[in-house]
């Protein structure tokens, strides 16, 4: 799971144009949509595209995204259970 979490952090930084943010700056249980990363609703939608593109997971309800994207931990958990790629 550690590898997956590192991978996810890297992919998030790239997909969301988080310049000046490194994987060290993102703690596994920090809220992704809290103040630290400054993510907004468009970023949430972009993460949905990321799930599809990199892991073959299709999320059709943006509301479900809120729970899944709570932290790297919840995200990695979800990806591990649902990935098709």
């Amino acid at each position, binding site marked *: 799971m550690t590898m997956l979490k590192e991978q996810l952090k890297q992919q998030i930084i790239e997909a*969301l*144009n*988080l*310049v*000046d943010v490194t994987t060290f700056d993102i703690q596994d249980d920090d809220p992704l949509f809290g103040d630290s990363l*400054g993510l907004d609703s*468009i*970023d949430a*939608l*972009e993460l949905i*595209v990321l799930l*599809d*593109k990199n892991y073959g997971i299709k999320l059709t309800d943006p509301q479900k995204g809120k729970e899944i994207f709570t932290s790297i931990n919840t995200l990695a958990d979800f990806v591990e259970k649902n990935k098709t790629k």
Partner: protein
Amino acid sequence: MPFISNYIQIRNNKVYKNGLLLFENSAVDFGTFAKNLYQQIGIVYPKFYKMDNLCQLAFLAAEIFLQENEEKNVGMIFCNYEGSLDTDLKYQQLIQDPNNFYPSPAVFVYTLPNICIGEISIRHDFKSESLFLLAKKYQTQYILPYTEYLISSKKSEKVLCGWLQMLGTNYAASLYLVESTGKIQHCESNIETIISTDNTNDYA
């Protein structure tokens, strides 16, 4: 009669304020040039990196003007030829191939030319009147009276006007700020001089 108080020109990897060279950077691609200019201006605004090229260009040019500005009622009238084509092309590439089909919401939101007005408004909390015109050349013949109307009717205390060119490596910005005081007469010839990409420091 309002005046042009300040003007910014960005062209050929150089930034001029009121005809004086403020910044230059030899980066070939706009993205690198913009990042360097952003760092030079010295603000901390991470949302900058999410913007598309047109928004970054408009945002940076406006930011140079607005660093000492306290006025909230600033109208905006922008004009360009390509619209949001620079980003439209990027977005089209994402939906072109049915086997690699990943439309990006973060790219799509920038496929409209007036989003740059939105970005400047968000940054400076400007809730005033704004317009984005599309034309082959800057439409001085009625942007001028429209600007004067905004000020004389007190709809805006200041108006930020200008021409924004952005397509690939071909970029240029010519913005000028119109308000009740200033050194440069707000007239067609001066506006044409500011907008022209042939020169950077002549005005009447």
